[in-house]
């Protein structure tokens, strides 16, 4: 059994390749095509999902450095979408202060606010 040296870090893709395959197969269904026409007025671009899947399987097969870089680019794109922040409103760092306060206390606070 081959054990990696303890100093090496084994890199694994963030998403299993099956994710891209699943999305690609949904993209090519009739329902999604119609939905894309209904929402955007045009056919969906499914080629990108297929390319992502191929990049992922290429790495799984060859484990080469170029395949890894390609896959990193693909994942970067998806993760950027995941962490996209809407510029319309300022972000919160912590949740709202009164989120967990019991309702009665909230009502009292509201009444005090109205009276003042």
């Amino acid at each position, binding site marked *: 059994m081959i054990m990696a040296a303890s100093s090496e870090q084994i890199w694994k893709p963030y998403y299993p390749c099956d994710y891209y395959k699943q999305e690609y197969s949904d993209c090519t269904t009739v329902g999604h095509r119609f939905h894309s026409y209904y929402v955007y007025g045009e056919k969906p671009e499914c080629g990108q999902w297929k390319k992502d899947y191929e990049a992922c399987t290429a790495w799984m097969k060859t484990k080469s450095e170029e395949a890894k870089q390609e896959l990193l680019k693909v994942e970067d794109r998806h993760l950027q979408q995941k962490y996209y922040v809407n510029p319309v409103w300022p972000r919160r760092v912590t949740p*709202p202060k009164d989120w967990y306060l019991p309702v009665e206390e909230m009502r009292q606070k509201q009444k005090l606010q109205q009276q003042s």
Partner: protein
Amino acid sequence: MAHAGENHAAGSEPSTSNQTSASAQDAQAEFFDYEKSDDGAPKREDLGYDLFHGRDKTYRENMTSPYGKFENLFDTYHPRCKTKLTVALKSNPFVKLLLRAMEESGCSMYKDRHFSCEPCSYQVAGGFDPQANQNIISSQGMMNRVLTHELIHAFDHCRGKVDWYNNLQHVACSEIRAANLSGDCSFSGELRRLQLKGVKKHHQTCVWQRAKDSVKVVRNCTDEEAARAVDSVWDTCFNDLAPFHKIPRNKKDAIRAARFRYDYDI
């Protein structure tokens, strides 16, 4: 992009319409946002709280007679609302995804604290109360969709400093996202409501219309102000799909979005 100018007959939707709204905002025309100040707090009637007339009363006051009332034959019966709420919270993937997204941002939601079933005015099917941080559900049908819509408001409130009271653009942005992602404008829904005036890009028209109407109803502002607000934030907010990765058309899309974000852990 969107057919923003197309005007459908905004029309009297029937009272079973599922036009939802974020509750409690002010009727000011300007878009600028400033720090919310405690002095000069607007009156409760201006904030849209009058649409939710069951809010201040206790359960006993609302339920004057659970047997004799005509409305209780329908989904406006309180225990039915609570049952549907429980089922939706446990099983619907849209709802569960949003709850998980909010947990990630630090706002867990508890059924008895953050959700409330109570009678509302006929114009609204539900609301989000940013002061009490509660979702108000008016016991109509389509619980899942209303819940998703309101949870999107709650999610926005949780992850950003949304100024519900003073900034029309913030409200419009949240309404666009909620109409876009909750299935309010799904093809089958629009077909059933006989609102389809064309298929191509109708989703965008529907979202625009719903967002405008919601902003108008809840902020008590004019049509033009609402339209201006919606148009100004349309591009950024229509394309902000958090926590989904694309505009969901069915439960499978929601489950796949959950897979992308949380590895099915919803």
